């Protein structure tokens, strides 16, 4: 097939930047990575990009296609090429560029290392010198986080990091959750204290771009939510973000609706709230808040309270409140488990069903 690509070329030594178009002949099965290889081999040997495993596990080939982060080795080009679209390939966002599609991963790894990214097992080791005894269910809590291949696609897309370059970011925080959720780790409180500081858990803007773009189904935003839930469960809730979240729950539980007028003092504290009175008055002038807050209780408040009760009764506190497990692993839709094996074997065009040959003479080795 014919594939056309536009690639943003960049050289940090000279500062030269240019969008170049390449037209190549590629096999129908080619991925974006295969196409870049062909460009490099046959058209321009100076094109720089990282690659290694070409099977979505090493995390080398994160880059952007038409402005969205992808793994080049996971991106099949056939449909794109057939549609006549010419995609624009560029380096990942939020990281400085060395050359062409190769970014500087140092900021990425220094945030990773700031998470204490190793197990801190405390003093109790398994008595028999063997493994820790942990149920699969407990391990499932960190299953998605442990799928992370450090490709940087989530960091590339992170809106919070774009405005605050020091924000720890989705990858590092997901790595943090991998240990917070691990029953073998004894430093949960210390970790959550650290992760709750400025540029941490509560600075995420919840745009969900990281979940959207992660090629491995790690769902970093869910990990950040779990860190938040664990923090609150353990009383590490001094940050405004935590107070904000707590007030939502409290407000819904008591009156069944969100009392916005109280949100600012409950989140930022009374001193800060007084400073914002002028802003509040302006909101009131424009009809955004009621000038005189009259507390009332919603008619169906018991519904909200019952919901809360259900959560409490199931003992799904903290991270356990987030449903996940190995089913989420492949992030692929599978909704047809109702079919029997017989039905699967009988589908039109199905491969022949398996059968055993009669035991004949043994074939030569």
């Amino acid at each position, binding site marked *: 097939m014919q594939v056309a690509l536009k690639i943003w070329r960049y050289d940090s030594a000279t500062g030269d930047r240019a969008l170049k178009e390449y037209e190549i002949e590629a096999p129908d099965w080619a991925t974006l990575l295969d196409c870049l290889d062909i460009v490099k081999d046959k058209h321009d040997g100076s094109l720089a990009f990282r690659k290694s495993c070409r099977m979505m596990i090493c995390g080398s080939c994160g880059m952007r296609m038409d402005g969205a982060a992808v793994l080049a080795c996971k991106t099949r080009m056939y449909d794109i090429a057939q549609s006549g679209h010419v995609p624009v390939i560029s380096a990942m966002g939020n990281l400085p560029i060395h050359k062409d599609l190769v970014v500087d991963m140092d900021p990425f790894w220094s945030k990773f290392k700031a998470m204490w990214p190793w197990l801190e097992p405390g003093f109790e080791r398994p008595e028999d010198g063997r*493994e820790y005894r942990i149920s699969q269910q407990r391990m499932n809590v960190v299953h998605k986080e442990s799928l992370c291949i450090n490709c940087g696609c989530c960091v590339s897309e992170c809106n919070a990091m774009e405005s605050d370059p020091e924000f720890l970011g989705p990858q590092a925080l997901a790595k943090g959750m991998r240990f917070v959720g691990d029953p073998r780790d004894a430093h949960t409180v210390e970790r959550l204290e650290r992760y709750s500081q400025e540029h941490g858990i509560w600075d995420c803007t919840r745009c969900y771009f990281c979940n959207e773009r992660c090629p491995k189904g790690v769902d970093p935003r869910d990990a950040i939510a779990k860190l938040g839930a664990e923090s609150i469960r353990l009383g590490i809730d001094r940050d405004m973000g935590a107070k904000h979240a707590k007030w939502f729950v409290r407000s819904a539980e008591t009156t069944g609706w969100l009392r916005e007028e109280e949100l600012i003092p409950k989140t930022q504290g009374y001193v800060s709230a007084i400073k914002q009175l002028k802003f509040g008055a302006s909101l009131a002038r424009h009809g955004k808040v009621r000038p005189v807050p009259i507390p009332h209780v919603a008619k169906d408040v018991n519904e909200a309270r019952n919901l809360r009760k259900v959560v409490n009764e199931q003992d799904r506190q903290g991270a356990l409140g987030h449903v996940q497990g190995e089913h989420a692993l492949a992030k692929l839709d599978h909704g047809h488990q109702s079919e029997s094996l017989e039905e699967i074997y009988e589908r039109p065009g199905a491969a022949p069903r398996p059968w055993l040959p009669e035991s004949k003479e043994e074939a030569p080795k």
Partner: protein
Amino acid sequence: MRAAIEAYDAGADVAMISKIHPTRSHSGAAEGGINAALANASDDNPEIHAFDTVKGSDYLGDQDAIEILCDEAPGDVYQLENWGAVFSRTEDGRIAQRPFGAAGAPRTAYAADITGHVLVQVLWEQVCKRDIPTYEEYFAWQLVENDGRCQGVVCWDLLGGGLKTIGAKTVILATGGAGRLYTGTTNAYSCTGDGMAMAFRIGLPLKDMEMMQFHPTTLAPTGVLITEGCRGEGAYLLNKDGERFLKRYAPNTMELASRDVISRAEQMEIDAGRGVDGNVLLDLRHLGAERIIERLPGSRELAMTFLGVDPIYDPIPVRPGAHYHMGGVATDVWGQTELTGLYAAGECACVSVHGANRLGGNALMETITFGKRSGAHAAEWALSHTTVSVPDSVERDAERELTELLDRTEGERPWAIRDELASTMHENFGVFRRERQMEEQGRIVTGLRERYRAALVEDKGEIFNSDLTGTIELGFLLDLADCMVVAGIERKESRGAHARPDDYPVRDDENFMKHTYVRLVDGSPQLSWEPVRMTKWEPQERKY
């Protein structure tokens, strides 16, 4: 990384050099698991593990090394778990184990089908904990031999450009395999046998280089790996008629025979016209959606992404692909090579625990156990010796060689040489070997080498010049292809991965129960033989 951790803990001053970031290493692509006789799923012990490994190796494995591996394996796996490895669990919370090919018990500890990935992660975490410095994206090019010792490595700095020479009292090679010698390979682009070739070039012997394992289940066309775990979970292999053809080749163990046996069986089915477009079919349908999604999600994702096949509904077309080099730099059981100060561990080394055929799940175990042992020994040596000296001439010579390569403005781009090498190796030195084809391959490699001397590096820049490193890698591969052909022609028998159906179809213990050693003498590879180290297992006929 395992070696670096061990050496650091022994008190040595350690650094790692890697041409890619450590977590990008191809160990991360190992899917199925790691073998240790933990006896979590059934009765098992290191002795049975050792026997399975010896038999699997077609009696070419060194039995002392195999016993060490199997004895230390359980402790080493517990250590990985204690460090935080996210293993799958049994009902009672222990590390889960699944059956694997040619194993007498369900012995393969696993983390779904991403075991290599979680182990690479846990090692990197432990490296971070110790803050071991890493020269990332430093491309190791030449070993520094001085005073009869290995005293460092000359590297090309990929990000910053320029040659950097790093001196060290001891150097451990952990550079992995050379699957890129073949068109259809499970190996990463970075698996170009760098460490083997570097050692070979300073005169060290490469052992059993003809032994390249073909994995039975790889995806067309490029060879992406589908784990043996699929068959461990009960998948069938079918020919185009739906026949479970292994009944005719390995009636007892069927799909769980050893890899060499299954790869040959598949190739024979395909050659006999019972394949489907050059493939056989890996059928998971009867396992059911639930089990596939829980235990084999990565394999399903790979099949869906690369072939558009959902294994819940359709069998996956698979074929044998180059997977693992049993051969490598000859070492003793502490990872020491012939050259003082130089060690090797993992796939680039040949201890030999795999002999002529490696069992699935033993590779990860070998990297851990022998990585640990090499690290310990290298640290001990470094701590008891004081000096490092790297003569200036080393870097000057390397610089001259580099300038010659970069100054060339005309010549052939290396990709055609690379592609021809890979396709001809596949054709002439694949699952089955024939004298005439191997000789032909020798001539082809010589011709390619001639062309390589005039290869053109187009990128002359300093920043991320992968055009340069790719060209150097091709030079490494050409050297290794030569070694493989030389050893392959001389092994006049069929043993493990080395199958010669036409002229020498059976194993010949009388004459060939010995290792090939290929070393560079006066510019060309010379072959010699070394005996297999035996302890208690006499060779028997190998049936599955």
